[in-house]
């Protein structure tokens, strides 16, 4: 148990520090890399909660795919920090107001003893050794929660199609290859054999 606590506090510390760095470092590439570290520590903490499927999926999806593309974009952009910081002082009062409202909301949830607190959520009994987290999740998703799951899938599909539709544009005046047409190409469309008489040598 003591080992688990050491691991938990180590990862929790790294996670909180990294999350703080995400919003404080100046370099956006550093910020993205710190976010990767935050996700990774979060995955480790989920692993401690015996949610191994979610933990590994967090690494596969967010660390392995989303953040790679994010880094990709951040590195390509030449972000100039000066114009970004321009209206900082002017917008500060509004930002403080929003921040204060959010803080109050959070505190209201945390302080309400009836809905939130350690004693309300007792430690669940440890799962037996043969328990398959993935199978349990799959069974729930495809039986009890089938409809929400399918709806989520459709929403994602719509998002994909919308993103493609927004960026798709027909450009004229550029050379485009049509692989289907290239594959369909036949010999007799491009090669013409010509029969001609052999020429006589000059001055012969």
């Amino acid at each position, binding site marked *: 148990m003591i080992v688990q606590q050491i691991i938990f506090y180590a990862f929790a510390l790294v996670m909180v520090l990294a999350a703080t760095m995400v919003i404080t470092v100046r370099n956006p590439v550093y910020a993205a890399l710190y976010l990767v570290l935050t996700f990774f520590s979060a995955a480790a903490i989920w692993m401690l909660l015996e949610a191994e499927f979610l933990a*590994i999926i967090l690494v596969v999806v967010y*660390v392995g795919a989303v953040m790679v593309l994010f880094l*990709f974009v951040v590195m390509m952009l030449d972000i100039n920090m000066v114009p970004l910081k321009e209206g900082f002082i002017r917008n500060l009062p509004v930002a403080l107001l929003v921040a204060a409202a959010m803080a109050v909301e959070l505190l209201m949830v945390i302080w309400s003893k009836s809905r939130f607190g350690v004693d309300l959520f007792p430690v669940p009994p440890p799962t037996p050794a043969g328990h*398959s987290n993935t199978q349990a999740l799959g069974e729930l998703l495809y039986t009890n929660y089938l409809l929400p799951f399918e709806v989520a899938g459709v929403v994602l599909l719509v998002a994909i199609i919308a993103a493609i539709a927004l960026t798709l544009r027909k450009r004229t005046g550029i050379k485009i290859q049509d692989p289907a047409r290239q594959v369909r190409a036949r010999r007799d469309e491009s090669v013409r054999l010509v029969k001609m008489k052999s020429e006589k040598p000059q001055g012969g």
Partner: protein
Amino acid sequence: MFDTVINLLETGFAWIQSNYIIWTLLKIVVITLPLITAVAFYTYFERKVIGAMQIRIGPNRVGPLGLIQPFADVFKLLLKELILPAKANRFLFVLAPVITLAPAFAAWAVIPFNDFLVLADVDAGLLYILALTSLGVYGVIIAGWASNSKYAFLGAMRSAAQSVSYEISMGLSLVGVLILAGTLNLREIVLAQQGGVFDWYWLPLLPLFVIYMISGLAETNRAPFDVAEGESEIVAGFHVEYSGAAFSVFFLAEYANMILISGLTAILFAGGWLSPFEGVPVLGDTFLAEGSILWFLAKTVVFMFMFLWYRATFPRYRYDQIMRLGWKVFIPITLVWVMFAAVLTVFGIVVKGA
């Protein structure tokens, strides 16, 4: 005298076995040391094989048959000067090769060498492999960015886009395997393929098998998908600024990844440690019909050889064609075949373990 030594050894061994951390560390050493040696000799193997295919001799100067050549290469690389480019990001520049190498080795934790030889027999083994192979791309991106060089950065961008694209088709091929096997545990996936060469998953999942191998080539940035380092276009890609030991770590990671993909192909599609002659009556109980670690190693070497064979055979793909192949050809095929795998399972055409 002799007895006391034996006794001492036995108590020592018992103590080591009872100490979980030391015993696990020992297991890790037993897996990684042969792996590093295999990487060293894989480079020799590659040069010999490609030499033979191009009717050359290959390395034959250092040691008998040139067998000491990989060690000569290693010492040459280690003794070279480590150059840090001006304005490079020092910390990330040094970190990048380590990030590339670590997942390539860590993934071996769940690889079953035979029925009981596995470091961590975890339930979510396949997911773990997916997660770790998707981490390797960070080393490449960070190396390209931290080098403060345009060639390195272009190589890193190409590689990142390529890896992320081919990871999808690779993951979907794995989905086909896990639908048939009904488990994410690599050991159980092998056991589900029992029954001889035609019961392995390469046959019912033939398109996925081919796509997995090709995606593996693209994931490890090997020819014909080696545009990340395309010498003729961007000098050497993401590791152009690296020298000496740091470069050798990238090199090590690439070959370790190739061995890992070969081993995974053997486990997922070619029955792992199972014998191809299982159930052949003539062979009976001989070692040929029994599953053993030798079969696993033999299969892995066959797939490792294929990596070299492709390199010597195919010309480099053009970048836009790589992306087209990944997104418009492989992903649709895998999606359809995953459905087909589900049909095979539901109607009991492929039964696991029989």
